[in-house]
């Protein structure tokens, strides 16, 4: 989907930002959309009575301008490669006023992968407040091979992040991240359009603003704030998990990141 020749490097992530995504599983973008676009999209969505699925782009053509933002393409190129694809799996998620919460889940069946293969893009055309049923994500859960049924005894989890966002926010999340929503107790419809992006080719080289000096510095304890990717991969513990889990996380993140660097390409 990306024309590498025309995509400016300024929209690509750097090494530490890629490592941060690998560790935490999400990134929030505040898009600079044409004036009135968010409002126009929200008003059209207000009129919908059923989910048009993939046809949502015909009902709200403004959405093409959202996914074609350079900053969106920059993040997708950085994380999924220059040949990433926008898939046909699109959904309008509306939390109507008075709707209850939605339990934690991972999408699809639990066949999780250490490779970065699929990402979700969640576009919010209207401000989302805490009482409007925001999406809630649990950073650091995206490498967990956890059947959704077994999440039924969890309610609030330490480290969960409610996406209380401004209109025009585009949240990029790892496909396997645990997520749910809180109840909508407001009188306003909370709209979100979900897009699915997919890798089509394994990386043979980094597809972001790569600087080897920001990757291969040895990790040193007490230097967690150092701006290099290996440190970001090792130090992030958004859930505050135990040592055993954290060591496994580091190993999986490192494999994932090395794959993105193209080190394991055949």
């Amino acid at each position, binding site marked *: 989907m990306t024309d590498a020749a025309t995509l400016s490097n300024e929209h690509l992530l750097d090494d530490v930002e890629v490592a941060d995504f690998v560790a935490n599983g999400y990134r929030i973008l505040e898009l600079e959309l044409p004036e009135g676009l968010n409002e126009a999209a929200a008003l059209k969505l207000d009129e919908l009575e059923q989910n048009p699925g993939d046809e949502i782009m015909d009902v709200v053509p403004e959405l093409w301008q959202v996914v074609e933002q350079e900053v969106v393409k920059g993040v997708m190129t950085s994380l999924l490669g220059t040949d990433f694809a926008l898939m046909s799996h699109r959904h309008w998620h509306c939390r109507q006023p008075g709707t209850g919460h939605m339990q934690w889940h991972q999408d699809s069946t639990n066949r999780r992968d250490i490779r970065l293969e699929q990402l979700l893009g969640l576009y919010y055309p209207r401000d989302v407040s805490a009482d409007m049923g*925001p999406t809630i994500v649990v950073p650091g859960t995206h490498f967990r091979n956890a059947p959704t049924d077994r999440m039924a005894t969890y309610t609030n*989890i330490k480290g969960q992040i409610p996406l209380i966002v401004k209109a025009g926010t585009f949240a990029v999340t790892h496909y396997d991240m645990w997520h749910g929503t809180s109840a909508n107790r407001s009188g306003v419809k909370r709209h979100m359009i979900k897009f699915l992006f997919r890798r089509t080719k394994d990386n043979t080289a980094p597809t972001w603003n790569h600087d080897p000096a920001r990757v291969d510095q040895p990790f040193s304890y007490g230097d967690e704030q150092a701006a290099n990717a290996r440190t970001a991969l090792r130090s992030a513990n958004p859930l505050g998990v135990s040592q055993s889990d954290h060591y496994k996380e580091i190993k999986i993140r490192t494999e994932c990141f090395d794959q993105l660097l193209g080190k394991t390409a055949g």
Partner: protein
Amino acid sequence: MSQVKNPQPRQRLLYLHARTPSVYSGILGLTQIEPVAGHKVEITAQDEEWPYETVHDAIVDGWQIVQFPHQQAPIADRDLDMVGYEFILQKMEVVN
């Protein structure tokens, strides 16, 4: 003629997801179920203050553990699955 009610203790449940199988480790998740018709729990967007920081805190407050977490890794130990170790606790109390 009015009947004298004799309320029976009912089971309150507490699911705690602890960082390790130790009752002294910090908790990462908390779900409290009250034996009241229509009671529901829900994920909230606003921070909630939890009454306990560890499983031990809950024991001190009178909760009894009815199920300890399984400690055997169900799959290869290189994989990650659920968040934390699940303790299930109960309190038998008369609940109005």
